[in-house]
């Protein structure tokens, strides 16, 4: 399955989107009816005026007596508008409350921390030793309400997966949250929706909605520590990664590298995207490790200036991190 690059807020892939769509349709219908009615009355009014002008009826500027038909008509119109507004208010309230209801009954809790310019994703579990940390990618089980706690380490970001839910800001110093109940298996794309700096445009994320058994399998796999390198090249890469610049910012479970500044790399090679912007591939990995500044200028990962043999070794090791 490939990433559904076409993002639509009118889909039906999640309960929240469906609720939003229902609400949208109600609003659309009510407002369309009102719009049509208003336009009709407007046209009628203009037409009648023309006819009146032709009939030479002179407006003397005197106050006409109230016309019972007019009064009824106005009251009826008021009632229509009132009913319409009340309907919209009720629809809005119901939609809002049902989304909050889902939030109260969440079965899975994820914490997403926004950084410039990547998403730190942590799966929370009652048994803390089963927590999982990954980056730029979410895996969700179908039909299960998921509550995503949103935090930020630096500036305001916004979490937006259009096919699944609306936007929610990530504000430093504040905790916000969003609830998603996916209903259709698939791979959806999301992105940061609040300008957060030079590389805001390259802060995307992928949401992979799986069946529940597949989701559990993914979680179990994420709990595995990184495999030991088997080839000499991968071993050289492991030595470089755990003793040089990489380990100042990155963590790979099962190795001495435990830094928290950058994304967790334990299962890097099994992710669908790299650096929140490119498809995962060997070529992109080479390019990114060799010179991140040319791909995302201003990103926090520096261009180290690896020697060619170091680059080969590092990429060889990173590719084993499935």
């Amino acid at each position: 399955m490939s990433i559904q690059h076409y993002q639509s807020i009118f889909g039906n892939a999640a309960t929240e989107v469906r609720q939003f769509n229902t609400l949208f349709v109600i609003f659309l219908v009510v407002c369309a009816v009102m719009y049509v009615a208003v336009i009709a009355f407007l046209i009628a009014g203009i037409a009648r005026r023309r006819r009146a002008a032709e009939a030479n009826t002179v407006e003397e500027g005197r106050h006409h007596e109230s016309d019972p038909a007019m009064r009824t008509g106005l009251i009826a119109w008021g009632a229509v508008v009132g009913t319409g507004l009340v309907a919209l208010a009720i629809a809005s309230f119901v939609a809002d409350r049902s989304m909050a209801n889902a939030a109260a009954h969440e079965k899975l809790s994820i914490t997403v921390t926004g950084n410039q310019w990547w998403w730190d994703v942590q799966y929370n579990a009652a048994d803390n030793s089963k927590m999982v940390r990954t980056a730029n990618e979410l895996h969700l089980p179908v039909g299960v309400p998921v509550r995503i706690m949103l935090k930020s380490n630096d500036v305001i970001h916004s979490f937006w997966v259009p096919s699944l839910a609306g936007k929610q800001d990530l504000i430093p110093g504040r905790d916000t949250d969003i609830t998603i109940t996916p209903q259709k298996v698939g791979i959806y794309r999301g992105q940061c929706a609040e300008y957060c700096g030079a590389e805001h445009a390259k802060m995307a994320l992928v949401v992979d909605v799986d069946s529940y058994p597949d989701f559990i399998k993914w979680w179990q796999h994420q709990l595995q520590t990184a495999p030991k390198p088997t080839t000499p090249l991968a071993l050289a890469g492991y030595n470089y990664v755990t003793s040089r610049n990489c380990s100042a910012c990155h963590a790979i479970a099962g190795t001495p590298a435990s830094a928290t500044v950058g994304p967790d790399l334990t299962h890097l090679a099994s992710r669908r995207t790299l650096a929140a912007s490119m498809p995962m591939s060997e070529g992109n990995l080479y390019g990114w490790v060799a010179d991140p500044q040319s791909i995302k200028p201003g990103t926090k990962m520096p261009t180290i200036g690896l020697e060619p043999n170091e680059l080969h070794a590092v990429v060889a090791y990173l590719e084993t991190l499935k």
Partner: protein
Amino acid sequence: MQRVACAYLVTLLCTAGAALTACHRSEQRQQYGSATVYGTAPAGNHAVAPPAASPADDGNWTMPSKDYAATRFSGLNQINPGNVSKLALSFTFSTATTHGYEAPPLVVNNTMYLITPFPNYLYALDLTKPGAPTKWVFKPKPVAASQGVACCDTVNRGAVYDNGKIFFNTLDGQTIAVDADSGQQVWRTQLGDIQKGETITMAPLVAGGKVLVGNSGGEMGVRGWVAALDEGSGKLAWRAFNTGPDKDVLIGSRFKPFYKSDQGKDLGVKTWPPEAWKIGGGTVWGWLSYDPETKLIYYGVGNPGPWNPDQRPGDNKWTTGVFARDVSTGEAVWFYQTTPHDLFDHDDINEIILADIPWNGQRRPVMFRPARAGFFYVQDRRTGQVLSAAPYGYVNGYRGVDLKTGQIIPNHDKDPKVGRVVRDICPAAPGLKDWNPSAFSPVTGLVYIPHNNLCMDFGAMQANYISGTPYVGADVKMYAGPGGNRGAFTAWDPIHQKKVWEIPEDLPLWSPALVTAGGVVFYGTMDGWFKAVDARTGKQLWQFKAGSGIIGQPISYKGPDGRQYIAFVAGVGGWAGAVVSAKMDTRDPTGALGFVNAVKDLPQKTTAGGMLYVFTLPR
């Protein structure tokens, strides 16, 4: 006429106001250093030290805690409240170091031994000759880079004498045995790795033929452990970690924790996020006690890392708690976690005083622990059961201890939050009392506690782990607690769990206490006043201004001439005194993990030093 009356009134008011302010100031001066008595010492049936762990005083001081029960009680009684004001300086000695001096002098076989902070010189002074000339000095030459990974000044908490050898640790993680007569090295074992951020500052305990050593580095993301070396050869006999799987923690069939929350398999892994226990702290940088009857060692475990608790959800076993282990094999016998998922750096490494107390008509073997968290714990030392826990100062970070479940009751209003500052948390990170041990007198039945009265603001943030660098994740500012005094010396009745008398002090008290059979209590202040107070009433009897602040253990010994001597080394430093010993800038209140804000005035009140003072009564 009106103008004159007005002027007269204004003058009157101003004078009155000035008088009132002067009144208040002199009140404050009177307040610090003088005792308020709250009650009397228990008469008769009170706590005593267990005889096996606390033998009769032979006039020597062979280990920092004086005995295995950690009483710090001297059986000598020549000096008493009637004559202590006549104490005179007998001789002095400059240790040639200016970092915090936390160790006691040791006296055995008419020789005095001094272990200095980095570079950890070991001096032997001949007490039989006038002026106590140096017999020898042993220079272990620890690696200078170890100074860069020692969180709280480059201190050393003491050496130990046993069986003709002096044992001590160096900052760069070595344990060394030196022949007590000749000063020649017998063996040297490397236990800690500075590349991982480990240092060793604690005083070893020698018991059951083993030298027990623990590491430091809870602020550096190390994994804490306690190790036993064979006394004769220095070879590693066993090492028990304080985090990780049961086999590393030496938890086996003998392990029977009293409370349910401490029971389970591999809790040292399960109560942490994955891999976090490997860098989770739990060091052993404080005190160990030993019960020769049961052959159990008792020690407290340091804080989990990082300070930011959000990075390590879970109870974080086996940190901030107390272990009982078999001294020969190291296997764990019981554990009690004082603060599960510690929020405030309340290491549990304080002294563990062993005592026997009357309990329901019988004698019960217990331990007294004035803990960092602010509670004075009385626990059965066979099982770890908490018999009582009462606050010995102002505490608002916890609501109490539930004796049914053994759990401390948190106050969630004070939970640290990443990206925010939580204010007014008491006690502050150094706790209501830090490492500096209290003394217990079996004569009065009281525990003499030199401690702090500090609160803090705590701003948590994400910590990044890079081995060999700090792993903290918090900005802290400390300041005086209620009352305005930053320290207090409390005489505590451990059985009725109440204050008997208390002396408020301007500065935090970072010096250990000494109590003698003669009925005098000695302690020092951070600005250099060495004080003698009456053990029963707290009345100050005598004081002496030393050249530097006092944070080192005072001792009492019998000299070759049969007289009772009092000795201590004055050298301000440690966590509290780093602003002086490390020449810090007082304009940054978050310095020294927040301590600078609380002692900005210390550089005006004292300077760095390292001088031994020995007092005795004139002939």
